[in-house]
């Protein structure tokens, strides 16, 4: 038997424990409790969720793209290379798309955020051709891990950019110059022609930044021409560098083959995920989709070739939308009934999601009538 001060005394202490605590509580003042804490305020500053912003300026960037400048009191400080989503109302319906931030982290604190938007898809075309200065949009907090990291990455990033895939690297250039990021950057920048360049290379004079344009459709004297081939990649390869890739899926396929030929381990190459696109299906079928959002139930239509998220946006539902490429998990939803197709290139679900039947609607396509339970995003509804 254990005893410290004799069994009687020890037991007595045990029996009077609660009275001791009661008295300690009695003696504590009934002050009002703090409503928040510095750490929680920092969390809110970095992760405000959605921010109401105004389009401040729309100006041409390249032949086929524009810079959309957004203004708010303040945007969160971010890591150059990250993206935001922007939600706009087109024909009375809210649609949301991700765009890499093209401005600098310090600019964000001053309430300025620039997006480089190429006239291409539904929302991009709206933004470059129809959106008006003064229009209110909803911007997400900055997200994503396509950024330099002092622990994970080498001191140099070797960037392989294609077309508008240059935008996250433009932010990195600005961040290096203003001093908010500290690494070296070598960019192999594949574009069709000089008119397609989304930044003025001649204006960047910094030892830490080197940009090599590679023109595919135009012969430019003294410049590199063609595609991002293994020869070109090798020619400009820094001694020790982390490789970052941003561009269209077709470019990824091509460059990955080239990198593999150079004996690179493709797992060590970081590439920014693209949005899941419509599936190529002739005469796509149309299915009934039942969507539960809290206690609301919606019956809508969903086309076989379009993601469930597109179907929900088309129906005007406040559906969660972030990366649209299956990997951020923001649209994590429960499958109640039905079958679907989830293309492998967008498959980033958690193991347990398969067992318990959860899907990422942004990259899931219906192959029957379906019923799903989706976490609603109230901010989109109220916007």
């Amino acid at each position: 038997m254990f005893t410290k001060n004799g069994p009687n005394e020890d037991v007595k202490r045990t029996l009077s424990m609660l009275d001791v605590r009661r008295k300690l509580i009695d003696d504590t003042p009934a002050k009002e409790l703090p409503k928040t804490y510095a750490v929680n305020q920092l969390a809110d500053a970095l992760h405000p969720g959605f921010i109401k912003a105004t389009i401040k300026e729309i100006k041409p960037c390249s032949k086929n793209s524009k810079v959309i400048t957004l203004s708010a009191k303040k945007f969160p400080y971010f890591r150059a290379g990250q993206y935001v989503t922007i939600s706009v109302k087109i024909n009375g319906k809210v649609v949301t798309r991700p765009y890499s931030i093209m401005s600098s982290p310090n600019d964000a604190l001053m309430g300025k955020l620039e997006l480089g938007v190429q006239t291409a898809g539904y929302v991009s075309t709206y933004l470059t051709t129809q959106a008006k200065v003064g229009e209110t949009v909803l911007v997400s907090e900055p997200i994503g891990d396509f950024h330099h990291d002092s622990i994970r990455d080498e001191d140099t990033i070797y960037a392989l950019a294609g077309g508008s895939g240059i935008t996250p690297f433009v932010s990195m250039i600005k961040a290096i110059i203003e001093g908010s990021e500290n690494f070296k950057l070598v960019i192999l920048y594949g574009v069709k022609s000089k008119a397609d360049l989304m930044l003025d290379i001649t204006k960047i004079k910094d030892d830490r930044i080197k940009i090599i344009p590679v023109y595919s459709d135009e012969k430019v004297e003294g410049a590199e021409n063609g595609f991002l081939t293994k020869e070109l990649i090798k020619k400009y390869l820094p001694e020790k560098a982390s490789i970052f890739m941003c561009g269209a899926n077709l470019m990824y396929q091509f460059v990955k083959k080239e990198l593999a030929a150079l004996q690179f381990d493709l797992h060590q190459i970081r590439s920014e995920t693209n949005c899941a696109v419509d599936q190529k299906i002739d005469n796509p079928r149309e299915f009934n989709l039942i969507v539960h959002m809290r206690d609301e139930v919606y019956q809508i239509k969903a086309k076989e070739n379009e993601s469930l998220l597109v179907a929900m946006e088309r129906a005007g539902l406040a559906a969660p939308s972030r990366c649209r490429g299956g990997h951020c998990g923001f649209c994590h939803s429960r499958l109640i009934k039905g079958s679907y197709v989830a293309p492998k290139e967008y498959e980033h679900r958690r193991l347990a999601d398969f067992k318990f039947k959860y899907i990422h609607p942004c990259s899931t396509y219906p192959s029957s009538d379906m019923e799903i339970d989706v976490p609603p995003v109230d901010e989109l509804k109220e916007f």
Partner: protein
Amino acid sequence: MKKNYDVIVIGAGNGGLAAALAVLNKGKTCLVLEKHNLPGGFATSFVRGRFEFEASLHEFNGIGTKEEPGSCGVLFNALGVSDKIDWVPLHEAYRLISLEENIDVTVPLGKEKVIALGDKLCEGGSKYMKDFLELAGSISDAMTYLGECHGKPDPNVMKTKYINYMTTCSYSFKEVMDKLNYPSIIRKVLTGYWSYLGAKEDDMSFVHLANMINSYFTKGACVPTLRSHGLSLAFEERIHELGGDIYFNSKVAKILTDETGHVSGVKLVNGQEYYTRHVIANCSPHNVFSTMLDKKAIPERALKLTNYRKFAGRGFTVFLGLNKSPKELGINEHSYFIYSSSDNIKVYKEMGKLPHTAGQATVCLNNALPDCSPKGTTILYITTLFTEDAWSKVSEKDYVKMKNQMAEGLIKQFEDALHINLHDHIEELAIASPVTYAHYCLHPQGVIYGYYSQYNDGLMYRIQMVNEDAYVPGLRIGGGYGERLDGFPSSYKSGANEGARTLGDIAKEGK
């Protein structure tokens, strides 16, 4: 449209999920409201590249086996989730490295093995190990008995059969261990788990830590095959099976009360209201009593109690996806405790600073689940605590720098302790700081361990005063801030207990 429920649970963390199942299993209607888009709170996982990281769970104690379920195994059976979860048992308790004294000991699981280890540590060491496990075992038995008689024990049984409980209960771990006067190496090796409870030994109640050590050493531990996200989804599936509702992206702004001060419903941030007379809050009382209740509905005593309490550790975790196998890297164990010193009072103090390398609890998941990441890769996560609100001075601009500086120190500490290299093999990296925990789970200051186990606010005080500590009629608070303190088994149990108490409250109303 259903707006009325017997019970509404705020927060789908472990405590909230268990509370919901406790009431649903008895035929009550229940709605769970969660601010995040996933269930589980800390019990979750996330994907980076080709890795799925476990967000929080190191090892789960108390599941036992199918044939012989442990206390949490029994609870999971009762809640109806056992069939939905697969477990893998662990082989060793931990490898303990104490840098100051050059201690490096791997502690096995299993009573006989732990006793056998004793003689390898010092002469006669096995006898001390045996003595300790006997003492701790008798305390565990007493606690089981107290649970079985619902806190109304026979005083004579307590004073005879469970006398060790009665003589140790009021003392701290330090007070009892000083008196036992074991050889120092035995005491140091036995105390490895202290950081799981996050309290230094002069605060930590002896019966709490002794029961935990005994439970791990003699009953073992395991991990779920599908990360703790698999646990949370198993609970969610069961909630649906029992007709419960669970809404995500649904942050509760207010707990509504009627003119008598009794709970009458909740109001979401978006203004939507749901009605009930019974709320179980799986969140911090500091949040409940500062912003969620109307001032007039907050009893003075609730403010006194909440002010009396002290926050426990704020969390910090570095998640590494490495592009070599554990074997290639030289990581052979599942759990590591690496402390700058065996003096946990000193380590606890060091943990108040930012940055610090006072200590870490680290897990290599592959050494429990070999296939948890692709062939030739490793998942390693390093966790430590901040015993003070050290991140409160960090600015928005310096945040990433500070996070990385802190993480660098922990990675290097692990490398140095094991004489290995991680740095050249980091393919994926994620860092969770107190700010991250504050963001996802709204915990004040990024606390992950609920309320600190102060000398007079330890496990047995809380369990015995749990009814007395509930002040708002219709409101129960469970989870990591609850009676059983932090941790996976504790938060599930405390949630289920609050569920059971709520059933009692409902039954009383019916009369």
